[in-house]
């Protein structure tokens, strides 16, 4: 395959969208850099969104790319990919993972991808301020969710740790979604369309589960069964 066909570019209202074809990452990366070199004047100072398809990219690869691009005066602001690894790596680096508008082919009914087979996104770390996690299925977090962090899930959110940030479970309207945490003191909590902030609590924290019941968010203590 000719190298140029690996890199496709089109203009967006506020920058460039560069789509990469299917090849090993080092090949794509050098194809991209060649492409940029050839069109140097065009890219200078540009805001670039990168579409990577199924490519699985880790934080190290993305941050190296971002730094290389920024060395050439190019701002990488978004990485759009299908792999959850790529998506969470871009989110960790503070890059957008979708363009402002819905993707060119919005599906009429957003499929609850993860929910059908009950798959969940597993995160084994504390989410600090500024981190945003979005996932269509359930999300399990072993660690805290600090103030300023956001978790948006199509399904339920289970936190083995302290919840102090913002959580939105059942974000696509799933009213059966629940939120559980060992210590539940969110900045704001939403399930489907309902919003609640947590009252100031006295005494020792205990594991709790929040459910949507009769159109309101209700807390109950969290125990199996």
């Amino acid at each position: 395959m000719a190298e140029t066909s690996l890199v496709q570019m089109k203009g967006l209202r506020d920058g460039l969208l560069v789509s990469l074809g299917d090849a090993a990452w080092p090949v794509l990366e050098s194809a991209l850099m060649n492409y940029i070199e050839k069109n140097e004047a065009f890219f200078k100072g540009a805001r670039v969104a990168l579409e990577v398809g199924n490519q699985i990219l880790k934080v190290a690869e993305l941050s190296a790319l971002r730094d290389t691009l920024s060395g050439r005066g190019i701002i990488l602001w978004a990485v759009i990919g299908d792999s959850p690894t790529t998506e969470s790596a871009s989110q960790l680096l503070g890059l957008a993972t979708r363009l402002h508008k819905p993707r060119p082919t919005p599906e009429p009914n957003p499929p609850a991808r993860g929910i059908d087979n009950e798959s969940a996104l597993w995160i084994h770390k504390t989410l600090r301020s500024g981190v945003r996690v979005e996932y269509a299925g359930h999300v399990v977090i072993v660690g805290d969710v600090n103030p300023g962090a956001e978790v948006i899930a199509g399904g339920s959110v289970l936190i083995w740790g302290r919840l102090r940030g913002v959580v939105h479970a059942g974000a696509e309207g799933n009213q059966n979604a629940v939120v559980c945490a060992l210590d539940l003191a969110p900045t704001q909590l939403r399930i489907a369309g309902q919003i609640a902030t947590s009252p100031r609590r006295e005494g020792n924290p205990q594991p709790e589960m929040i459910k949507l019941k009769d159109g309101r968010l209700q807390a109950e203590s969290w125990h199996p069964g």
Partner: protein
Amino acid sequence: MTAQIVTISSGKGGVGKTTAVANLAVALASEGKKVVCIDGDIGLRNLDVVMGLENRIVYDIVDIVEGRCKTRQAMIRDKRLPDLFLIPAAQTRDKNAVSPSDMMRLCDELRAEVDWVLIDSPAGIERGFRNAIAPADRVLIVTNPEMSAVRDADRVIGLLEAEEKAAPSLILNRLNPGLVRRGDMLSVEDVYDLLRIELIGIVPEDENVIMASNKGTPLTLDGKSRAGQAFRNVARRLSGEQVPFLELEAQSLWERLTRLGRK
């Protein structure tokens, strides 16, 4: 010599990064170590003022990066401590004049010549911050016992984790034990509880800090003030001294203060 590159950062402005850099540099240099401070705050420089070297700036970091001078020419030697140098920021340019790879090249060059490189990061999480952390072997986060400063510190720690940098250490600056006792200020425990990173120093609030920075003589230079003592301890911990006692010592000081207050 193989220098350690230490970046001092915070997210929020005004928490004491520049003061921390100046004092740590003085403390390390008074122990006979060769220290270079780099002011990363291009366009809003002030490390030179705090260190009292403002009127001696000829070349700055942008001159080095753009090849107008040799690195050595931009290093201002402190008159009081011959092993202390400052590479000032440019005041008439902005952060984009330097890139993360420029910083890495500069630090690699210094690495062979000095013991410590301390980088004063600008506030914020944009280009200047990226420049400052790119070459760092180690990052110290300065925060105050205030919710807004702690939140920003948390954000910065998250960004460092995303960059897969080594875990940063925390300097809790401007702690007022009286206010903590009355429940009007976050305590060391409150801050640690949220940030969960190694505590490398607790610096008490001290009005001498302001007087010293106005005079351009970092207060670690004179032996008496408590904040100066706290910064000297941080410098010793940085050098690897007393590392096993780090948190114990911090806590016993803390407990002593609490106990004093209860009497």
